[in-house]
């Protein structure tokens, strides 16, 4: 390890570190990436102090490297997340997440009269605004905004 300072979550040798996750959305990130269903070693810390986010969470996943399209799925709940790709304890690459144009199967439509809330339909949204995330349902055409965003 290069850094002398104390780490809240111990370092990994190879894998991915997801930093700057809002603490309140840690478990949503875990759920979206399916981290609760893999067998790799995962360590995380939450309610850590962050100047930017207030309270942040950090996740370290050993032996996993994500495709961009998979990692961008967390943009809805962790738009400021930063990824460090670790090889042999060194950061070899840094990535930021990008909000995709189309969101498939992550968010729930807030319209109680939408077909996606009645039948088994994979939800699908286009992004109307990336700044204050707002999603337009492909089916009922209603807008779901950040305050009402629910992850399936």
């Amino acid at each position, binding site marked *: 390890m290069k850094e002398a300072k104390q780490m809240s979550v111990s370092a990994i040798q190879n894998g991915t570190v997801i930093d700057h996750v809002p603490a309140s959305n840690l478990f949503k990130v875990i759920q979206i990436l399916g981290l609760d269903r893999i067998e790799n070693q995962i360590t995380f810390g939450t309610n850590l102090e962050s100047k930017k986010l207030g309270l942040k969470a950090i996740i370290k996943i050993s032996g996993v490297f994500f495709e961009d399209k998979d990692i961008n799925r967390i943009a809805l709940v962790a738009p400021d997340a930063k990824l460090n790709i670790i090889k042999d304890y060194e950061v070899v690459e840094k990535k930021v997440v990008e909000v995709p144009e189309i969101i498939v199967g992550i968010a729930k*439509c807030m*319209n109680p*009269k*939408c*077909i*996606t809330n*009645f*039948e*088994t*339909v994979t939800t699908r949204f286009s992004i109307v605004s990336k700044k204050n995330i707002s999603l337009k*349902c*492909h*089916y*009922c*055409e*209603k*807008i779901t905004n950040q305050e009402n965003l629910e992850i399936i």
Partner: protein
Amino acid sequence: MKNRSLVSIDDFSTEEILRILDLTEEFEKQPIRKLLEGKVIATLFFEPSTRTRLSFESAINRLGGKIIGFSDSSSSSVSKGETLNDTIRMVNSYCDLIVMRHPIEGSARFASEIATVPVINAGDGANQHPTQTLLDLYSIRKTQGRLDNLNIFMVGDLKYGRTVHSLVMAMSRWNATFNFISPDELKMPDEFKMYLDNSGLKYYEHNDFTEIISKADIIYMTRVQKERFSDPIEYEKVKNVYVLRNSMLKNTKPGMRILHPLPRVNEIHPDVDNNPKAYYFEQALNGVFTRQAILCSLLGIN
């Protein structure tokens, strides 16, 4: 347009909309043509809508097509708990095109993704009713001779009325100016005003009828529904403010026409009916020709 579905008016380009309107004109000249001979059209009405269903069935009959379907979900397998997915898969193999009305929003888009035959949305909850929009456009073009640069007045329930929402979106393609007359409780939602702002189109909001209607090319009336008000006293206060009477039409333009998706309750006084500016019953008849044009376009006939 062959083998495409019509779920939302935005599914069609401006050119495609104009092509449907031109074809509608042909059907108005000659409505009885056996173009659908040998075709089976399913009309699935998961909620009753007598007017829309009869208009579609009249259009299909005049084209010589055969109809299967139901007019109310209580008489279908839905009452046994069948999913929409299964109903559509089954009906899909029995017919050449599906016309569907359903109370749940987005159901028509979902059906169009399951079906291999074209699906026409005949209304999905408060979402879309594109055949109504096309017949409104046809009525506007026919009475005004054009769609460009018109001053469109919309009156009544502008908050929940899907017909006015779709018409705003559609008419914004032709540089319309809009005047919205409604009680505060039923104002045009912000998302549509934002859309007009972004498109650089002018709109004005009013709380009641004034001399301003002398500028109208089209007055589009809608019903103010009692069930939209949480406070019945509020309804009683506004229900008579939005009634159009013959005496109010004195200073309106000679070519102005009054449209209404029907059914009306009291928002257009019967004394307007004999005024040549009243166009709502002809508008309903145009619906049959428009639906003939849509059916044939989606089936690739003509």
